């Protein structure tokens, strides 16, 4: 047992800190801290900054231009970025498609697509979910029918995050409808400028329009855009989902969020004293801080295992559930702390006027609280995770 980082790891952390101090502008960090929507330019700029340093693809092997960090280094990097309020790296190309291509793509695909991800030539989005298939992903209906050296794709994808910025989408499509659901799925790369692709924004309850529907109508996709074997897409999809779950615990985000709550609670006065001294508020704050301490340690235990080569098992599901509950509790504390100034609807209000409504820190507490309800729904809902945990402990009981 040793709770300390190695001197090398400490040095790496210092290097990351210095980089962030130098390269992350206060404007951008502030935007992230307040939970405001970033523009495509913001993202592109940050990706380019990281790429210039060789840090854009921490999880990729060096042969593909990645930093080849181990799990502990990745954790240190992610934690520092989160606490510095750096923009999150857009995961679709880097964390999701990249590993799939590296493992299952052919040489031509690797050579063509991987550099473009790093350079920002392509903006990828994810075509997994469908209106009828939420947690039950394998029931997807989007059909791809072979026609010479093309597939003709018809169907609808939804919850496509940042699809409005994307020029490419990787899709799960059904190539064989006559077999068990999981066995007829293929993994296709689709150029969104092809005729028949239409992107429609979905406005969410917080006023944001970060997710989209993608309609595919007789879209012709060259067969060379098939990744791996036809009808084997479910295997690749699952592989991708395990990669999606890097940083699933969100420790850095929660830590930054908790600090933000404390700042609010030190400023807000309630009953003649700072809110942070109100025992009811202090109690809830302390409990979630304790929960976060424990969860961060669980996260390190999993990372430490991963760094020594053990695959994380059911712990990922546990971290997903507890990590999202903690973040959501922190979001809830933030909106409470803000008091009546949580009422103004930030995303519109802030465009209308130059004068901020109420204190700065109150501006986006509500939209963030609302938006982060998604945390326990997407990436495998918390219900699906509980099912996985129970199955692992109890076996498949009938």
């Amino acid at each position, binding site marked *: 047992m040793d709770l300390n980082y190695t001197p090398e790891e400490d040095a790496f952390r210092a290097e990351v800190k210095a980089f962030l101090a130098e390269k992350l502008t206060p404007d951008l960090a502030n935007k992230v801290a307040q939970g405001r929507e970033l523009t495509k330019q913001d993202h592109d700029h940050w990706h380019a900054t990281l790429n210039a340093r060789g840090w854009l693809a921490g999880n990729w092997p060096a042969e593909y231009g990645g930093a080849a960090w181990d799990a502990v280094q990745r954790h240190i990097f992610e934690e520092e970025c989160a606490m510095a309020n750096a923009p999150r790296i857009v995961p679709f190309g880097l964390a999701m498609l990249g590993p799939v291509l590296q493992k299952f793509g052919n040489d031509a695909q690797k050579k063509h697509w991987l550099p473009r991800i790093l350079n920002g030539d392509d903006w990828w989005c994810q075509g997994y979910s469908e209106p009828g298939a939420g*947690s039950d992903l394998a029931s997807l209906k989007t059909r791809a029918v072979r026609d010479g050296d093309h597939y003709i794709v018809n169907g609808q994808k939804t919850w496509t995050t940042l699809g409005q910025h994307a020029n490419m989408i990787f899709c799960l499509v059904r190539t064989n409808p006559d077999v068990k659901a999981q066995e007829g799925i293929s993994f296709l790369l689709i150029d969104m400028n092809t005729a028949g692709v239409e992107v429609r924004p979905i406005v969410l309850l917080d006023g944001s329009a970060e997710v989209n529907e993608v309609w595919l109508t007789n879209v012709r996709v060259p067969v060379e855009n098939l990744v791996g074997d036809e009808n084997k897409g479910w295997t690749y999809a699952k592989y991708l989902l395990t990669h999606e779950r890097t940083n699933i615990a969100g420790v850095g985000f929660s830590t930054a969020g908790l600090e933000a709550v404390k700042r609010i609670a030190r400023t807000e006065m*309630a009953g003649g004293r700072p809110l942070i001294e109100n025992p009811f508020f202090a109690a809830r704050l302390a409990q979630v801080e304790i929960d976060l301490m424990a969860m961060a340690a669980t996260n390190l235990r999993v990372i430490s295992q991963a760094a020594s080569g053990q695959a994380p098992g059911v712990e990922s599901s546990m971290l997903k559930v507890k990590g999202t509950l903690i973040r959501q509790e922190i979001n809830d504390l933030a*909106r409470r702390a803000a008091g009546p100034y949580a009422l103004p*609807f930030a995303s519109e209000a802030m465009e209308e006027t130059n004068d901020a409504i109420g204190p700065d820190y109150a501006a986006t507490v509500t939209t963030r*609280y609302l938006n982060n309800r998604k945390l326990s729904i997407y990436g495998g809902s918390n219900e699906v995770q509980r099912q996985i945990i129970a199955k692992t402990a109890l076996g498949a009981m009938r």
Partner: protein
Amino acid sequence: MNFELTEERQMLQDTLRRFLRTCYTTEFRNGVIASDQGYSPKIWTDLAELGVIGALFNEDQGGFGGTGFDIATVFEELGRAGVVEPFLETGLLAGRLLNQQDMIDQIIAGQLQLAFAHAEPNSRYDLNDVSTLATMLANKIVLNGRKAVVANAEAADYLIISARESGDDISFFLVPRDTKGMKLQGYPMTDGGRAAEVILDDVTIDVTSRIGIPGQALNQIETTIAAATVALCAEALGLMETAIQLTIDYLGTRKQFGKPIGSFQALQHRMADMLIELEQVRSIVILAAGHLETAPNIRDRYVSAAKNLIGRVGRLVAEESIQMHGGIAMTEEYELAHIAKRIIMIDHKLGDTDYHLERFIALSA
């Protein structure tokens, strides 16, 4: 002991429910919310004609209600339909603070809009934390200060503004919205409707603008806020009823893994817990409404109990309803999005869960 609505209230409830179910669809409501005004004058007039406002006043005032149970009946239905129109501000808050019968007549008729400008940027939920000053100057009163998150301010014909006069006590004043020196900085609210920051910069008004006895406003404000809190609690009850009904409907239709998701026992039991808590909410609203006309310390103990319980259950119901729906519930075009926001935002009005817990403890000692 009798927990049935009177015939009149039952009729009002039925009428409102029928009317709102037909007119106040999600699409319609989203249109209202997106509009510049933030409310529908048409719905306002229609509901006034159906007696929504009249039910909030007693017969001496020209209404036909005015008790806690009348308020609860009206606001439960407004909540059930997710109505964003400012009945709380004009009908209840302002209506109860005014003593001008001609204006009350206009309010009941749906011809006047008001706003109550009381809270300030640093007052949070403290009703007694007023820094706005009312200074006598050559037979005039001059108001200076800032009022925070004043709902319905932009639409209001008049604002009722609280301020401290000489000495330490609070008075309030009826001020036309277009009075010189009063600046409104308006914005939409998360749960629909609009509010404004009201900046008072040497707003000069006649002494006759004062309502009631100088410096004696706090007591009346507390009584009014108690009634408004009952209204919010009843509204929350209606909102939760809708959230739960939408979730029940969705559980029956949405299929995952080849079965309606309502067949999953984990969700069934969580639904059962929500239904149990809904009955708790229904009961506490009845208690608070039924004690609105009792002595202030008893009244406020029940009111704080209700607001606390509603804060706790509201969070549960809003979050569980969204979670059990999944992504669809987060889209603006789905009814639950608005309903859930409104439930959560009620926790930011007239004292949150913790504020009322603290007050309940103080009043129980």
